[in-house]
Structure formats: C-alpha cells, structure tokens
C-alpha cells in the first residue's frame, strides 16, 4: 500500500490486526514521506530512521505474538521538549543543543511500553515560548498549507508533521495555546487535556502551573486513542491528578442531542476576522442540527487573561530556566572570567531573544517591590477567571469559540512585535489559566483556503465531552478531511 503515511492511527490499527500491513511497512512509508516533504516543512529537530525501523520491527513481533497494545506499531513524533533517554532533547534551544537525558519522560515511557514507533522530535519555539515556531534555535518550521506561513506555535513541528503526513500522530505541549493554535493553523485536531491529566515528568518546563502535554492527530478518533494512552496518574509528578480516566473512545460516534454549548460574549466580541466569524457561525449551525442547544454566557474576567498570563508564565519561566547555567549540562560559553561571567555569557549565548525577554519580564515581576503588583495580582485574577469558568459550566457542557483570531500569519510578520504575537493566544490562554481541557478541530477554510480551527472547552476532567462533541461535528461536517497543498501560497 503506498498511502499508508496518510492513514489515521485507527485505520492502520485495523490493517495491522488484519495482517494487511506491518509496522515496518507503515514506518517505511512515513519515512519516505518525510524524505519527500521535510526539506519544505522542516518539522523535525531530530530523526533517527534506524531506531524507528528497529522499533517497528519490535512492534511487528509484538503484533505477531499477540502481546500488542492498541497503538503498537503506529508512528508518532514527540515535541522536542519531552525527554527521550539517550537521545538529543534540545527544547529548540542552543543551550540544550547536545543534551541527552539519562531518563525518559513519563509519556515517552508510555509510548515505548505501548510499542509505538517514535520517529523523532518535532520542532518548537525555544522552550515553548512563542506562537509561531520561529524562535527555535533550529530555524522555523513551515506551514504545509503555505510554506511562507508559520504553523503556529509553540508545538509547530508536532502540528505540521501531522498535517504534512510526516507522522500518523504526534505529541505537543500547551502552556497558553501551544497545541491548539498550531492545530488550528495546520488544519489538524489537537487537545490540551485538563492540567494534571498527563504527567509532566520529563517535560522540559516552561511554566509549570500551565504546561500540559496533549495529542495531535488528523481526526478525533486518534485523539481519543492517544488520550487513553497518555492520561493517568504519575507518582513522579506531584501535580498529577489521581483520577480514573474513562475509555475516551467510548465517546466517539455518540449522540450529542440535548447537550448544551455556551458562547461567551467576551469571546464573540473579540472576533474581528470575517472568515473566523463565518467558520464559527457555520460550526454553530452544525451543532444545532445535531440537536445541541446554545446559550449565551458571560466570563467577565476573560479580558485580563493575557495580561495575567504574561505575568505568571514568565515569572515561573524565569525560575524554571535558572538551571541552564553551564555547570551540570548544556551550553557553556568559552573564554570567561570567573563563575558569574560564565553564567551570564553562557545564558546570553545559549538563549534566544524571546526566551531572554521572558526571563527579564519574569525576573522583574518577581523582584523586590513588584511581587504584589504583578505576580500576586495576576494569581488573584487567575482565581477570578477560574471561578468564571466554573460558574459557566454549571449551565453548559462545553464552550465554543475560535481557537485563534485569524488564520496562520506569515513567517517574520510578528517576530519583532512581541505584544502582537502574545495577542494571538487570546482565545486559548484563559483555558490554561483555569487548567481546563480544550480541543481545536478543523472548522473550515478561509477565503484564501487556509484552515481555521474551532475550539471547544469543557470543565475539569471532562475531556470525554470534548471527544463526544468533536466526534459528532467531525462525522457530520467532515472539515478534517481537507489536506494541505505543501506549496507557497
């Protein structure tokens, strides 16, 4: 079969179980596809073909022996911030350019135990700080829908590789929209689960109270399959939730009639882009046809989400990134005079502009005399935002809104205007602030033929409702079937 690379995980799973293909064949098909399109897309930081084929061979013997798990033998890409034992894990940064962790992230351990074929690590904004994958030390990833466009970020490599069929599925991480925004820009599905659903152990931290790992796929069925694998309590992560997650695939292809979706006025007011407005209106019609009831909502503190986020995330980051000092691992600047000089020069040369900007911002906001006005104030507003959502979910099953204010923007367009870049995450950030699950699924195309995602948000640990609604929408509207051109627009 020549088109194995473009098939979804659930399709491949049944082909594997019917003995119609092998993991080696699938992996080879994906690797061939990577050879073909990767020079244009540049989604990967590290690729190890031999290791991938070796994993595929092991998967095939598991499948043959009947000891396989659901996703055994399926190719996957991981974001370059997930520690992969003995393999280069750079977090898109020069400061970790040669770092090979002597441990696996808990999610990587799970993928390996499942017998999935890890192809390599996907490009990202340096330390996940960015909305375009342009701040990577390894250069920008391009959007398969238009090679002069960004794929969004920070998990741009994870989203672009799935959109370009360079992998079947992938994992990303989402701190303020870093899964959902690139999913929207690249026309794929991406979910940020509830904070605490997926272990953060081994996920290189950006902002610890906001970071969460989640899946990318070309359809919601695959999202559900991946959630089944990656969700779960981890004693190595003190913030991991000791909850029993359901079988998410049980919520696929079920009726949504009688469910209620809220549409917050504060989100609707912010939509300026005509295409985004149309896609959202269209989605609303689809849901209504499916028997979903819409109600209006108010989330009064939503407007402060970005400001509060850009205090809290940089504060945590300034502390999380202090460890990159050239002592135990990572880049060390040559020609230094004494310890402090070594710190300052290693960090100056090892970090890129955006990372340094956020370290400066966070350090300032935590420094003596400013803590109350910034960190403490933002942490209190975070409480108010969370309470707004909790109240909203008393009267609805999910909230519907755009994922991003507009379709993908051009590479270089916002790189020198941090404030404009930050505003890209206006619809996604509040979800992280409250620790809620959110999913972006393809909602349709813009007048220029670019994908536009719609976002569904649910209450804590109600990923199942997102799967249920997304699956119904996908089955009815089939917007997820559109494929990119892989050309310059």
């Amino acid at each position, binding site marked *: 079969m020549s088109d194995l690379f473009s098939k979804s995980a659930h399709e491949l799973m049944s082909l594997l179980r019917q003995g119609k293909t092998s993991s080696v064949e699938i992996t080879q098909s994906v690797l061939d596809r990577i050879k073909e399109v990767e020079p244009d897309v540049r989604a990967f930081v590290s690729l190890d073909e031999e290791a991938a084929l070796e994993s595929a061979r092991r998967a095939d013997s598991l499948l043959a022996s009947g000891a396989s798990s659901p996703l055994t033998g399926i190719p996957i890409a991981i974001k370059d911030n997930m520690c992969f034992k003995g393999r280069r894990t750079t977090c898109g940064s020069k400061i970790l350019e040669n770092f090979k962790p002597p441990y696996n992230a808990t999610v990587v351990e799970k993928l390996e135990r499942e017998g999935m074929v890890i192809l390599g690590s996907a490009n990202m904004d340096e330390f996940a700080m960015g909305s375009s994958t342009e701040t990577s030390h390894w250069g920008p990833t391009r959007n398969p829908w238009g090679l002069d466009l960004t794929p969004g970020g920070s998990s741009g490599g994870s989203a672009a590789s799935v959109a370009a069929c360079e992998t079947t599925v992938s994992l990303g991480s989402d701190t303020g929209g870093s899964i959902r925004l690139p999913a929207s820009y690249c026309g794929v599905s991406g979910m940020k689960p509830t904070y605490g659903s997926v272990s953060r152990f081994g996920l290189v931290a950006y902002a610890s109270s906001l970071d969460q790992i989640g899946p990318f796929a070309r359809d919601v069925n695959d999202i559900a399959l991946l959630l089944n694998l990656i969700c779960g309590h981890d004693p190595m992560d003190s913030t991991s939730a*000791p909850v029993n997650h359901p079988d998410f695939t049980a919520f696929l292809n079920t009726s949504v009639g009688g469910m209620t979706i809220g549409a917050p006025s504060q989100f609707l007011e912010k939509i300026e882009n005509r295409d985004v407005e149309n896609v959202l209106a269209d989605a609303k019609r689809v849901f209504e046809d499916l028997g979903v009831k819409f109600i209006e909502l108010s989330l009064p503190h939503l407007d402060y989400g970005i400001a509060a986020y850009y205090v809290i995330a940089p504060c945590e980051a300034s502390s999380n990134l202090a460890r990159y000092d050239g002592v*135990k691992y990572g880049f*060390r600047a040559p020609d230094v005079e004494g310890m402090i*000089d070594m710190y300052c020069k290693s960090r100056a040369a090892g970090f890129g502009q955006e990372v340094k900007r956020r370290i400066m911002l966070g350090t300032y906001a935590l420094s003596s005399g400013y803590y109350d006005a910034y960190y403490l104030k*933002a942490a209190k*507003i975070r409480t108010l935002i969370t309470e707004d959502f909790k109240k909203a979910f008393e009267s609805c099953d999910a909230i519907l809104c755009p994922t991003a204010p507009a379709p993908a923007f051009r590479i270089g367009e916002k790189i020198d205007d941090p404030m404009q870049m930050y505003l890209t995450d206006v619809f996604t950030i509040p979800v992280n602030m409250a620790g809620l699950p959110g999913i972006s699924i393809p909602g349709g195309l813009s007048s220029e033929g670019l994908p536009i995602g719609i976002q569904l948000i649910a209450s804590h640990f109600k990923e199942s409702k997102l799967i249920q609604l997304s699956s119904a929408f996908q089955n009815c509207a089939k917007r997820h079937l559109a494929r990119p051109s892989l050309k310059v627009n």
Partner: protein
Amino acid sequence: MKITPEQVDYVAVLGRLHLTQEEKAKYLSQLDDILKYMDTLAEVDTENVPPMASPVELFNPLRDDVVKPSLPIEAALSNAPSIEGTSFKVPKIID
C-alpha cells in the same frame, strides 16, 4: 509602570544574562510596552480574592522514605561541560 534603564541592568544581573547595549535598549522599550499592557490588571478588584498558584485543588502527595538507586556515575556526568574526577568543574567565583 515604567521600567528604567537601571532596572533593566538590575534585572539582567539577577537573571544572569549578559546583555549588549543594543539588547538592553530593545528590552527596555519592549518591556515597557508589555508592562503598560499589564497595568490593566490594576483595574480588577481583587480584594479578598485568594491567589491561585496552581489549577490543582488537591493537597501535596507524599512519598515514602525509601532509597532507590542513584544514577550510575557515568550517566550522572554524561552531559557535563567540564569535569575533574567525578566533580563538575567550574571557574572560581571572583568577588
């Protein structure tokens, strides 16, 4: 709030970042923009609102006091930029 060039210098020292004059000027104006935007936070009445440090509304789990093997020494030092024996080697602190 307005950030001053002295504060940029101070913050760069606290964050251990060696910045060029050019970078300092750029960060000064960019941080100023961002902080102006942050000033909207002051509009919100947060009297009696508890701060939220994490979305998890649970208490900290505790681990039993059980020793597990440490890293083999080769692995413990495998990413080190400079070692001497089994110690990490660093330049001396100059006062």
